[in-house]
Structures are given as structure tokens and as C-alpha cells.
């Protein structure tokens, strides 16, 4: 008996079971060890799955042996194989290296529950990404959200505002999920099926139905809430600011990416090009808010004093880029979104880890606490610098490639003002990144905050630099991004993935 055909199921099962088991161990060190093992194993499994998708094309796994649409299927194509590997990869980097910061920020008697929640959250995100069933998607979204609410609230031992942030997140997340549920209900009512591929086929004949149109609208609005697309982004800024450091690093690099993936899946695969862009003005709606997100998010980032908050608002803007690309409705735009998806996950994860190192050493991460840290924490500072340049999208980082695609996509669509917004957005990024780097490198410590005692443990800067290496590889190698274009084209082909 071989487990090879079972890999798609195992990708979700391993973190899930590990999460449940960890919830029972009552030992901080053991919990961490199990969580690390599970996340690394999961990453290996996603890589195996990606290799299989590369070799065989779409991998379909019928849960319970019931062929879809009677049962639930997992359906993995190039697009979600990539996102699966991204989510599992970020977890495999962040979970094993999180021990020091978790020990500092979470009460010791809660580490088992903490790691259990983290793994269940990862399992939820992986499940969301792998599934081919619309309702299953909803259930899994709720798992990843519910765990995330609790994880954000755990930041309260450092700052009580974590609680209000978590509550706000819960309310917005639940409203978003409910809108999604309603939208799915409308689509289910019109098609009689919950399977994505089947739904896509049946929707093709139902473009005139107001039910379908309303369903589409509510799915899009619900997902926008979940992705924290402007103007419903405030919850994310607060949650990222006050959550425990490693939670922020993990969520910032995965949660929103999964949201964007789902949106691509719905807009392109399930609704199809005509329903999304010709019949419904999805593109206009998303483009408008994406542009606003880019500009407003960046402007708000410039005004921040707390660096975590600065990065959180920068994420608001980056979601704008991601949505903008997918709303362009073209291969170029989608390629931009995909490259940005990867790059931003790597860069934001690294930046939050580096900022976590500062929090670890300095007790906080305001501009005061970052002043002049480059002298004593050169590696952390280097991570902040490279990460910052990646956020701007300077050439030779992945951010430049995605920016290039987005601008080209906007120009191709004849939307030069959108191209200008993309470029102005990166200009605003220059403003907040340079301000940060000036403080880090040229600031005079001692006057406003004590100089750090020394470099943070390697478990902070090493993973950060590793992730940044990935971002640079993405920015330098045309091969990596060239493969992505093929994936994007595959997703664009419409119909079944």
C-alpha cells in the first residue's frame, strides 16, 4: 500500500491532526516540537503535491470516495498548488523559529493551545486552498478565522488593545463570511450544486438571473471583507499591530494571500470571464477600491509611528495591488497578482520577523525603539532594509516584477490612470520605507531609546533573510516568474480549473 495517491488529503490532515494532538500535550516544549515537525512535514507534502501537479496536471481527490458533485473533492491545479506551497512554506519557516518570541509574548501554560491554534489555522488555510467545493470552503474559512481571532486576542498580554482588535476582526470576519454564505446560497439555489467545477458549468447558462447576479455580488463583497480591501481594512491594521509577533508574521504572509486566491478562483474559474467582467462590473468595483486601497493605505502607512502598524497599513496597500491585478482580467494582470502574492508573502513575513526581533530586544517597535539599531543589530537591520526595498518594488526584487506586470496590464487594458496609481503607490512606499531606514541606519540611539544589547537570536533574522533571499530570487530569475505566467494562463482558461 502506498500513500502517494493520498497526498492531497494528507496536506490538510497532517496539520489538522497535529493541531488536535498538540492541544492535548500540556507541555510547551513538546507542543513547539510537534508543531515544527508538522509544519515542515506539511511543507514537504505540498511540494510533493506541486511536483505531481506539474507532472500530471490537475489532481483530483474524492473525499469519502464519493465522486463530485455528490461528494466533496479536492482539486489542485498549478494555481492552488502554488498557494498551498506558499502557505505551508511560510508556516514551515515561521513556526519552528517562533519559539523565542512566543516564549516572550504568550504565557507558558498556553503554548500548547497556542501552537494547536496555529496549526489548525494553517490547516484551515490549506483546506480552503485545496478544496473544490464551495460550501467546504466556507467551513474551512471559518476554522482559519476562528483560530485567528483567538490568536490575535492572545496579544493582550502585551497590549490590551489586542482584545478590541480581535473583537473587531471577529465582527468583520463573521459579517464577511456570512455574506459569502448568502452569496453561495444564491448560487446554490440557482445551480443546485456546491461543487465549484459543476457550478461553473451550470452558471454559464444562467447569466441573466438576478439571483445569480446578486450571488456574485455578495460573494465578491464577502471576500473583500475577508481580504480587508479598502474601505473595510481597519480591522486588519489593528489585528496585525497587536497580535503576537509570530502570529502577525504568519497571518500577514498567508491569510490575505489565501483570500486573494479564493477571489481569483471565484472570479475566473467559477463565475468565468463573461459573468465577472461583462455582465457584472466586478472589474470596475474591484479596480476602484484597489486603487483607493493603494493610495490610502500607503498614505496611512506614512503617518505611523509604530512600525508594525506601518507595515500593517502597507499590507492594506499591497492588497490593493493584488486585487488590482486580478481585476484587470488579463494574463498580464493575473501574472502581476501571482508574482506579487509570492513576493509580498516573503517580504512581509520577513519584515514582521525582523520587527519581531526588535520587539524582542527593545520591548517595542516604534520609531523610537528602532533608532540606530543598525549598529548593534546589523542583520536585523539588513533584513528591514532589503524587505523595505522589496515593498517598494525596486528592481531585482520580486516586487518590481509584479509592478511591471501590473503597469503593463493596466496599459494593455488602456487604463493608464490605473498604471499611474500603481507607480504613485510605490512612490509612497519609498516615503515610508526611507523614513524607516533613515531611523534604523542613521538615527542616533541613546537619546530616545536605549541602544539594543546586541543582535537578536538567529531564529529571528535567519528566517527573515531566508525569505528575502526568496524574494530576490523571484526578482532576478525570469524562469521562476515565467512558470507563473503559465499557471496564470491556465487559471484564465476559464471553466474547470
Amino acid at each position: 500500500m502506498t500513500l502517494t495517491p493520498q497526498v492531497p488529503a494528507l496536506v490538510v490532515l497532517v496539520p489538522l491532526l497535529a493541531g488536535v494532538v498538540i492541544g492535548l500535550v500540556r507541555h510547551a516544549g513538546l507542543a513547539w516540537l510537534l508543531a515544527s515537525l508538522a509544519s515542515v512535514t506539511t511543507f514537504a507534502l505540498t511540494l510533493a503535491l506541486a511536483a505531481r501537479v506539474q507532472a500530471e496536471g490537475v489532481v483530483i481527490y474524492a473525499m469519502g470516495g464519493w465522486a463530485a458533485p455528490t461528494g466533496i473533492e479536492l482539486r489542485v491545479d498549478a494555481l492552488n498548488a502554488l498557494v498551498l506551497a506558499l502557505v505551508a512554506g511560510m508556516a514551515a519557516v515561521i513556526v519552528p523559529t517562533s519559539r523565542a518570541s512566543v516564549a516572550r509574548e504568550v504565557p507558558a501554560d498556553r503554548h500548547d493551545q497556542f501552537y494547536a491554534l496555529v496549526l489548525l489555522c494553517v490547516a484551515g488555510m490549506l483546506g480552503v486552498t485545496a478544496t473544490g467545493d464551495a460550501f467546504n470552503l466556507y467551513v474551512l474559512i471559518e476554522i482559519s478565522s476562528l483560530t485567528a481571532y483567538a490568536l490575535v486576542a492572545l496579544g493582550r498580554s502585551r497590549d490590551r488593545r489586542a482584545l478590541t482588535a480581535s473583537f473587531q476582526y471577529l465582527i468583520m470576519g463573521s459579517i464577511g463570511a456570512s455574506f459569502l454564505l448568502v452569496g453561495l446560497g444564491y448560487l446554490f439555489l440557482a445551480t443546485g450544486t456546491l461543487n465549484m467545477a459543476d457550478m461553473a458549468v451550470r452558471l454559464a447558462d444562467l447569466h441573466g438571473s438576478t439571483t445569480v447576479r446578486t450571488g456574485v455580488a455578495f460573494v465578491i463583497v464577502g471576500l473583500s471583507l475577508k481580504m480587508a480591501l479598502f474601505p473595510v481594512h481597519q480591522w486588519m491594521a489593528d489585528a496585525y499591530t497587536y497580535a503576537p509577533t509570530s502570529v502577525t508574521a504568519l497571518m500577514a504572509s498567508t491569510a490575505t494571500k489565501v483570500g486573494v486566491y479564493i477571489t481569483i478562483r471565484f472570479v475566473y474559474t467559477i463565475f468565468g470571464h463573461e459573468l465577472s467582467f461583462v455582465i457584472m462590473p466586478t472589474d470596475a468595483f474591484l479596480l476602484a477600491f484597489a486603487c483607493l486601497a493603494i493610495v490610502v493605505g500607503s498614505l496611512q502607512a506614512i503617518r505611523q509611528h509604530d512600525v508594525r502598524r506601518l507595515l500593517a497599513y502597507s499590507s492594506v496597500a499591497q492588497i490593493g495591488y493584488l486585487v488590482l491585478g486580478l481585476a484587470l482580467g488579463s494574463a498580464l494582470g493575473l501574472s502581476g497578482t501571482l508574482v506579487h502574492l509570492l513576493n509580498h508573502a516573503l517580504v512581509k513575513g520577513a519584515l514582521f520577523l525582523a520587527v519581531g526581533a526588535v520587539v524582542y530586544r527593545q520591548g517595542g517597535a516604534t520609531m523610537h525603539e528602532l533608532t540606530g539599531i543598525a549598529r548593534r543589530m546589523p542583520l536585523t537591520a539588513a533584513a528591514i532594509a532589503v524587505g523595505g526595498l522589496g515593498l517598494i518594488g525596486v528592481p531585482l526584487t520580486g516586487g518590481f516584477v509584479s509592478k511591471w506586470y501590473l503597469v503593463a496590464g493596466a496599459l494593455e487594458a488602456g487604463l493608464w490612470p490605473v498604471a499611474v496609481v500603481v507607480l504613485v503607490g510605490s512612490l509612497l512606499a519609498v516615503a515610508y520605507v526611507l523614513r524607516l531606514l533613515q531611523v534604523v541606519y542613521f538615527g542616533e540611539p541613546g537619546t530616545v531609546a536605549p541602544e539594543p544589547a546586541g543582535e537578536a537570536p538567529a531564529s529571528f533574522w535567519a528566517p527573515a533573510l531566508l525569505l528575502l533571499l526568496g524574494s530576490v530570487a523571484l526578482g532576478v530569475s525570469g524562469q521562476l516568474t515565467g512558470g507563473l505566467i503559465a499557471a496564470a494562463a491556465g487559471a484564465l482558461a476559464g471553466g474547470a480549473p
Partner: protein
Amino acid sequence: MSLLATGLFNLLNYWVYVSLMMIGLYAVIAKTNLVKKVIGLSLFQTGIFIFYISMGVVSGATTPITWTDAERLRLGLSRVEVAPERAAAALAAVEEDGLDAARAALGPLAPADAARLDELLARPYTNPLPHVLILTAIVVSVSTMAVALAIVMEIKAAYGTIESDEIVTAELETARAARS
């Protein structure tokens, strides 16, 4: 007006669900009390349940638990006027040869009774799928509520209040104190 009439007749459940969602959404946004927000969220979510269950309804249908032919017949016979021995014969026949044989064994009935019996024997099932989905949704909803209330309790412990505007004021004061 005909739209309204048709709607009231055909779509009433849906419109009720829309009103419940509106009431809930209003409460979530407008209320400052955090517990009240959670309650609003609960209303908002249960509204959706009505929508799903209503779409599973089939006119004249029964609950989606498979009835054997004998069970159907037994129920049917209890609702019509029929001589006990003919009923027994029919019940015996259904075990052997199925409903058609039983119907034959029953012999002629009064027209109203025959129609009623036929209707009961052919009763369709309600769609089970929406029920399953809503079972899940109910569980999700109560789980969310549990976590939400846990957070509210912690907020009370940390801030001494569960009114969102008072929390904002408290934060502003903390910030001011930190600055001075």
C-alpha cells in the same frame, strides 16, 4: 403590485430572512454594547438559516428520512376509511410484492380517500442537503459566539466596560497619559 403579491405568496420566507439579516446587521453596526453586537451577529446569521432551509422545502414533502413502503402504507391507511381486514391484506402484500400489489389488495376506495392515499404514498422528500449545510452553519455560529463572548469577557476585565465608545475614550486617555 402583482410583484408584491407574487412575492408575498411565493417568496415570503426569503423576504423574512432578508428582514432578519437587516435587523441583525443594523444591531451589529449601530449598537455600542459589545454583547449586543454579538447578539446582532447571531440574528444576522440565523436569518441565513431561514433562507437555506426554505430553499430545501418541497410542497407536500416529508422529512428526509427514507420510509419503507410498509411504513408509508401504514401511515396512509391510518388517514383513510378502510376496513381492517383489507388493510391487513394490503400490509401483508406490501411486504411481499411492493406498493402496487398492496394497492391492488386494498381494493376500491372512496374517490377522496383514494386520492389522499395516493398522495400519501407518493409523498416526496424534503431536500436534505440544505439541512446538512445549516447544521454546520449553526455549529459555526455558536462557536463564533463562544469565542466572541470570551473576548468580550476579557475586554471587560481589561477595560472595565463593554461599551465600545467608552473603550475608545479609555484608549485616548491612556495615549494622552503616555505622552505627558
